[in-house]
Each structure stands twice: as C-alpha cells, then as structure tokens.
C-alpha cells in the first residue's frame, strides 16, 4: 500500500472525535507560541490575537461534515484580520487554512470545492492587497501552491477511498453472484437427479403396477399368464433398483472409476490411489481410528468424495502429492483430502460442478462438507455421521 493509502488507513482507524479535534487543540497551542504575533505590532491586544486564533482553528472541528462552511469561516476570519489589523498571518492560521482546504478536498462535494477555492483565493488576495509593500508574485504563488496542493491531496485521498469502497462493493457483489450461481447450479443438478429418478421410478414401477393388476385379473382363469406377469414384475423390479443405484452412484461420466455397476467402498481407496499415481499424482493414504464396515451408501459417498477431490487436484493444482485421511470416529466418519498445490493455484470456484454434486451427496447422508484453499494447498473435508450399526 502506498504512503497515501497507509495514511488514509491509519486515519480511519483513529477514532473520529480525536481526528476532528486534535488539530484544533494543536493549532491553538501553536498559536500561543506563534512568533508572528510576538513580532507583530504591539498594538495588537492579546485578546484580539486570541480571538483570531480561536476563530481560525475552532471551526476545524466540524470540517468533516461541513467543509464548505468551515473554509468560509476561517477565511472570513483571515480577511477580517487582514482588513482590521494587518496582513501578518500567523503560522497557525496558515496551517488552519491548509487543514481546511485538505478537508474540503476529502469531504466536500463539487460545490464546496468551488467555495473553498473561492474563499481561499479571496483571502489570499485580501492579504496580498492589504500589504503596504507592493505585492510580489510570491505572495500569490506560494499560497496557491500550498492551499491548492492541500485540496488536491485531499481530493486524491477521497478518490482513493471511493475506489476502495467501490471495489469492496464489487467484491461483495461478485461473491453474492458466485453464491447465487452455485446455488443455481446445485438446484439444477438436484432437478436433474430428481427428474432422472422420477423417470426411472415411474417407468419401472408403472410397469409393475400394470402387470400386477393383470396378474390378479387372470389369476384363476389363466394362471400361467398370471405367473408370467409375476416373473416380469420380479425382473422389472430388480432392473429399476439397479437403475436407481446406478443413478445414485454414477452421477457424472467419470473415467477414473471402477465399472459402473460395481459400487465401490472405502476398501477400494488403495486402488484409486494407485490409479491416480499412474497419472502422476502421488497419493498418501492414511486411516485413523478403528476401521469398521459402514452402510454402503455412506462408503460410496466417501469414496466418490475422495475420487472427486483427487480428480480436481490432478486437474487444477500444481500439486505433487495429495494426502487422503480417513478417520473412523465412534459416531462419524471423517474424510479429508489435501494437496500441496499451493493456495494460489488456479482453481475454479470452490463450488465447481463436481463439488456441488459432492455437497448434494454429502447432505443426502446428513453430513457436512468443507472445501477451500489454504496457503499450503486445497483442502476438502467431509464429516459423515454413521448410524451406529454397520450395514
């Protein structure tokens, strides 16, 4: 972050009341030891000098919310002083104008900027003209540089602040958009799964109902036909179940899996690790706790999770090794897949299609899933409650 940025950030952190009033106090204090007044005409009563100091510094306390009014107040005091007393402007009042101009730059709208410029120009002019000596160029140029510079600096900080806020807003919006998209994709995936399941069920079960009705109708008059119908029911019933299993087990075309109609369990993780190693990704497999057989859908989900995570690592990360840990707890199964691909590895959103399917499946098992990048690499972690009794 640049100096300006750091300055801005530091100022933001300080409590606003301090920011508002500390310069006032400081400048007031400064005004007391101001050499200008001391060297000025003895005619200037201390009270007037004090009033002038207050008039030029006190308004600064409101400069955040009313920068236009503040600059007017301060320059008015300067003008009055110049007209009544003389063109000797104290250092503290000079600083006060600087601070006020800076405030106009940071907090003021267009109108207030114009006001500030006008007021400052007016003050500079009056001070220069009330001088006994003919005005030199310096009396115009230097103030312009100082006061104009202060305002420009303020403006730059304002722009920076606005840009930062806009970026933050955009960021939040993008995050929301990404979440919405992820939800949409998840919903679409669910719909697709539901539709397929519906088709499979309606297809098969519809046939079963018709055949059962027919079987009962001709049970006594054509028992052999009835028996035939019952056999068909058995066949179609099994087919439907197989199709359902197939649907729940293989939701996407994946080439790294075992044959579709064999449902893998956690015991097959070894072979999966070997297959991944053959593609160039070293996989370290570790089991903790006491392994025990778990319900088939749970093991399948856990297997698929590891498979998906490893596939992602292989596809996206510059990882050399992936670690798979399977922890058997008393009432839950924990599966963790990490890689060393570095958190900044190019990775599609953590809710890419594959992981969305995973979320769905893990949720179907009443489990939870976390996936995200860390400094070291990507981490996928799921916790699946076990029903207690093995399958």
């Amino acid at each position, binding site marked *: 972050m640049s100096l300006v940025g750091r300055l801005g950030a530091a100022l933001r952190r300080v409590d606003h009341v301090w920011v508002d009033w500390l310069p006032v106090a400081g400048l007031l204090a400064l005004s007391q030891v101001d050499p200008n007044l001391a060297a000025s005409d003895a005619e200037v009563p201390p009270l007037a000098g004090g009033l002038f100091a207050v008039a030029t510094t006190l308004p600064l306390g409101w400069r955040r919310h009313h920068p236009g009014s503040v600059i007017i107040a301060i320059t008015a005091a300067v003008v009055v002083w110049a007209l009544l007393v003389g063109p000797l402007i104290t250092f503290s009042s000079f600083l006060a104008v600087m601070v006020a101009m800076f405030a106009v730059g940071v907090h003021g709208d267009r109108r207030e900027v114009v006001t500030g410029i006008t007021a400052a120009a007016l003050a500079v002019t009056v001070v220069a003209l009330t001088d006994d000596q003919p005005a030199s160029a310096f009396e115009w140029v230097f103030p312009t540089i100082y006061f104009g510079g202060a305002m420009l600096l303020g403006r730059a900080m304002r722009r920076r602040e606005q840009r930062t806020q806009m970026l933050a807003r955009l960021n939040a919006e993008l995050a929301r958009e990404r979440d919405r998209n992820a939800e949409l994709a998840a919903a679409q995936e669910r719909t697709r799964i539901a539709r397929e399941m519906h088709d499979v069920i*309606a297809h098969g079960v519809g046939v079963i109902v*018709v*055949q059962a009705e*027919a079987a*009962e*109708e*001709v049970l006594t008059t*054509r028992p052999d*036909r009835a028996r035939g*119908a019952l056999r068909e029911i058995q066949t179609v019933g099994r087919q439907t179940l197989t199709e359902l299993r197939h649907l729940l087990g293989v939701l996407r075309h994946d080439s790294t899996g075992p044959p579709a109609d064999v449902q893998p369990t956690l015991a097959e993780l070894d072979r999966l690790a070997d297959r991944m190693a053959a593609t160039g990704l070293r996989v370290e497999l570790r089991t903790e706790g006491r392994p025990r057989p778990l319900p088939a859908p749970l093991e399948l989900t856990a297997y698929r999770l590891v498979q998906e995570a490893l596939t992602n690592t292989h596809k996206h990360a510059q990882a050399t090794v992936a670690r798979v840990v399977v922890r058997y707890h008393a009432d839950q199964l924990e599966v963790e897949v990490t890689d060393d691909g570095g958190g900044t590895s190019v990775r599609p959103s953590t809710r890419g299609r594959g992981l969305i399917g995973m979320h769905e499946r893990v949720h179907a098992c009443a489990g939870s899933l976390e996936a995200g990048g860390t400094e070291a690499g990507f981490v996928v972690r799921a916790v699946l409650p076990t029903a207690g009794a093995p399958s």
Partner: protein
Amino acid sequence: MITVLIVDDQALVRDGFRMILDEQHDITVVGEAADGQQAIEQAQMLEPDIIVMDIRMPTMNGLDAIRHLMARRGARWRILVLTTFDLDEYVYDAMKAGASGFLLKDVPRRQLIEAVRTVAEGDALLAPAITCRLVERFVQSPPPTTGIPDQLHHLTERELDVLRLVARGLSNAEIADRLTLGQNTIKTHLGHVLDKLAARDRTQAVVAAYETGLVQPGQG
C-alpha cells in the same frame, strides 16, 4: 363387443392392459402399437371403437397421432389417453385435440375397464374432478367477460346452466340434484349442448366452456 387398440411404447404395459381388457366378456383387444405412427396404421386397418394411448412416446408422439386420428373423416373411434403425470400439459393438449378423457397408468383395473365401457358409450366424463383440474391448469382462457360469450349465444339459459356445472366437474346425477331436474332432462340438455357446440363429447364441452370464458379457472 367393444374393440380396443392399445398404444404404448412399453411392451409390458401393453401386455398388462391386454390381459386385463381381454379378460372382460364385452371387450376385445384387436391390436397393439408401440408408437404414434404404428397407432395410425393399426387404427386405419382395424377401425377399433376405443384407442387407449400413451401420450409420451418416441417417434410420432401421442399428441400428433391424436390430431391425425381425430382429423380423419368419419372417424368413429374414441381416444383414451394414458399418462404417468396427471397435471401433464400434453394431456390437456390431447383433450383439446379430441381425446375423450385420460387415465393414470397405474389405474386400478376396475377403473380402466369402466373407462373403456363409459367412453364407448360416449356418456359421462371420466374422473370429472381430475379432468377439470387439468383444464383449469392449462386452459388459455380469455379474460372474464360480463354476460355470455359470443360463441355460446345460441345456447338456452338452461343449457348454459348445465354447461357451467359440467365444466365444474359435476356428474349428471349431481347436476340433476343441483338444478332440481330429472337426470334424463339433464342428459337431453347435455345432448343439445354437445350438438350446438359441435362437441364430440362431454370432455370437449368442458374445454369449450373454459376456452370461451364462460367458466373461469378457480371458481369451482
């Protein structure tokens, strides 16, 4: 003897319905078809009284087949649509195309048999409540008008009453009750309504009632 043609892309469904219908003394299954194209060919060849047809099939689907079949001049057959989903938009289109009613595929066989007999008689509407729900869901009805829609101007007051209640899903008996008239009177009125609307059967009358705006969905 009521002759039936069964059309469904699943052989076991055809087989099951065949077993059930053939077992009845007054019903004979004279043919089967596996898609819309075959349905048309078989129908033209066999001239069945009733065609029991699945609405969603590969090749020519049921809807196109229905339109084709009902467009044929002098066609005497009536079509009973089979569907897996009762709020299927296709079913509504099928009814508009001229189907006489519809059944869920997992219908108890008693209902299937009764449906075939009922439709063969051209009499009462099948499952009036379900049919009306379907019509209500999918009808593109015109905005509510005050008074009688133009297309129905030639119906008498009584006939309009009957038509309204038919559209609400009431059976003849219920309508007779409501209007405190005899069932035969209701039947006569309904016959006149069908003639005047050039509607093939009660189902078509229901469709007409909604489509002309005489009855609005949701008023039931």
